[in-house]
């Protein structure tokens, strides 16, 4: 069964590598069965900046995306390269409203160079796709999955992002296809 959601809109937040967004716009339609468009409007993350932590408050950015979203049966994915946090965690790779209209992901800690290793663009693209799929999976109503190989597995670190596949496991995949929009709650 196809998901009733027909459109995923990608929103650049701050200075983001355009090729990353373009890559997502090509790969996400196959995964979610929805067409993917680039938003003409960008989001400035400045208001969510926290001086003390020198990071950007993920939930505040998600709220700004939510304000942008309006009504309709589409999903909004914010893509940023700034470092995200929520108050209880040192960082998050992304955040989403479960069954809601918005999801957000950051490439900041997905670069090999962040860990002092040589740049690897292919690996970066692969990680970005995984995290974008993971957060959008939440927006489509999916919870975390215990399968090490499933993209809905929670990742505490980039090593764990590398461990999982870019796709849904055979239990999450059918759930995605049948998921009605659930109640809103933020998930990382």
């Amino acid at each position, binding site marked *: 069964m196809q998901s009733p959601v027909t459109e995923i809109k990608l929103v650049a937040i701050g200075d983001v590598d355009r090729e990353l967004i373009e890559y997502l716009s090509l790969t996400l339609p196959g995964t979610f069965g929805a067409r993917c468009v680039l938003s003409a409007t960008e989001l400035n993350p400045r208001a969510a900046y926290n001086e003390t932590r020198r990071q950007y408050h993920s939930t505040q950015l998600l709220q700004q995306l939510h304000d942008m979203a309006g009504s309709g049966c589409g999903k909004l994915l914010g893509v940023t390269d700034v470092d995200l*946090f929520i108050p*209880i965690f040192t960082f998050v790779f992304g955040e989403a409203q479960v069954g809601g209209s918005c999801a957000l992901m950051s490439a900041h800690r997905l670069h090999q160079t962040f860990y*002092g290793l040589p740049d690897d663009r292919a690996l970066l*693209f692969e990680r970005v796709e995984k995290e974008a799929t993971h957060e959008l999976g939440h927006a489509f109503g999916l919870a975390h999955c215990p399968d090490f190989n499933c993209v809905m597995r929670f990742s505490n670190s980039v090593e764990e992002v590398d461990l999982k596949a870019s796709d849904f496991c*055979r239990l999450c995949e059918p759930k995605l296809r049948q998921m009605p929009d659930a109640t809103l709650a933020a998930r990382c």
Partner: protein
Amino acid sequence: MEPTRARILIVDDEAVVRDSLGDWFRDEGYECDTAESAKVALEKLTHGSWDIFLLDIRMPGIDGLELQRKLKEAQPDATVIIMTAYASVESAVEAMKQGAYDYIIKPFNPDDLEHTIQKAVERKQLVSENQQLRTKIDELNLLHEIVGTSAATRRLLEQVAMVSASDTTVLVRGESGTGKELIARAIHANSGRRYMPIVVVNCGALSEGVLESELFGHEKGAFTGAQYRRKGKFEMADGGTLFLDEIGDIGLKTQVDLLRVLEEKKIFRVGGNVEIPVNFRLIAATNKNLETMISEEKFREDLYYRINVFSITIPPLRERREDIPLLADHFLKKFARGMNRPLMKLSSEAKEVLTNFEWPGNVRELQNAIERAVLVCQSAKIMAEDLPLKMNHANGNAAGRSLAEIERLHIKRTLEETGWNIYRAARLLEIDRVTLYNRIKKYGFKREAIDPRAGSKAS
């Protein structure tokens, strides 16, 4: 059966901490409740029980230390974890002296938080009771993916069953596309390590320096730019299985390092001086002739003997032709289901073409041929014409064109056939999605009309 889950009570006067942590734990499969003060927590204790208590050390009224004392009086085996800010680490240490299990510092590093909770839960022997996870993984033993009735396939299944039960190192040999990773995953899924991850490393894809860091990890400050500690694949595979694909491609220096790890079962992260014990089962794979490489001094003999304890050789598809119709049927069902197509059949001519083909790319090539046929076939019966042209010996239309031109046309046609489904197109082309994206950029392809029907993804 509903699994037994750890029950956690979070006591903190800050709503944001209670809500976020509560959601996080519930999401991770724990049962969780919250209390905004010690008074409320003690009330809750009278009509419920918890395995783990997470207590904020600074709260108005009764503070975390005092609450810990009261909790321990009421429930001596309570596991208490103290939450604290950097400024009050000293009081956290005091709490530990009074019997707290551990403390965590706000804001939490997600990895540390999960680690702390898992340790606490493991102590209560609850993780091993996660029946739900086990049932799910038990279903995924992957043996049904190894299809065939030939003597060679039966022998393969026997070998997988035999070696899975032990913890022996396995060397999987076979031509490209024969399914070496599938055999490794099946061994893992049927072994005692199946509840832990299988970590796959393609040794051929990484340069020697990067491979070392990937395998061993590094400490913060190990080299310029290493701002964070990073775990290597050896550590990630702890408790599970490490699958080293294309082991014949690793350099001599890394071979020495690998041999040491296999013998000592301990590693040092790059730049680290703490010995880290690792416990993984090794499965290695290669399509190279390691014996020849040894005689050419490109592969160490001692490493060869260390990894070649139990060897499984997967025969090429052309040597087990009787499996081809069964395999074709298996893939046909799989892709028809994935693309929401009705039940499909192979015509007798198509079956003959498939059975007589040489299959240089082995099972992977057969899988791709069937996937493409399901995509292009208009009826419920796959005809010989629906199969890739080269099988029908009619590839003359490419004559006179350059390699780049053939590549360009082939990619373009595959994108059109799959309705620009990058996932499926990349698999048919046997390249990763990022490489396909780079080719799309290189040749300047544009999707003409966006068609959401392109989205149904094969399983």
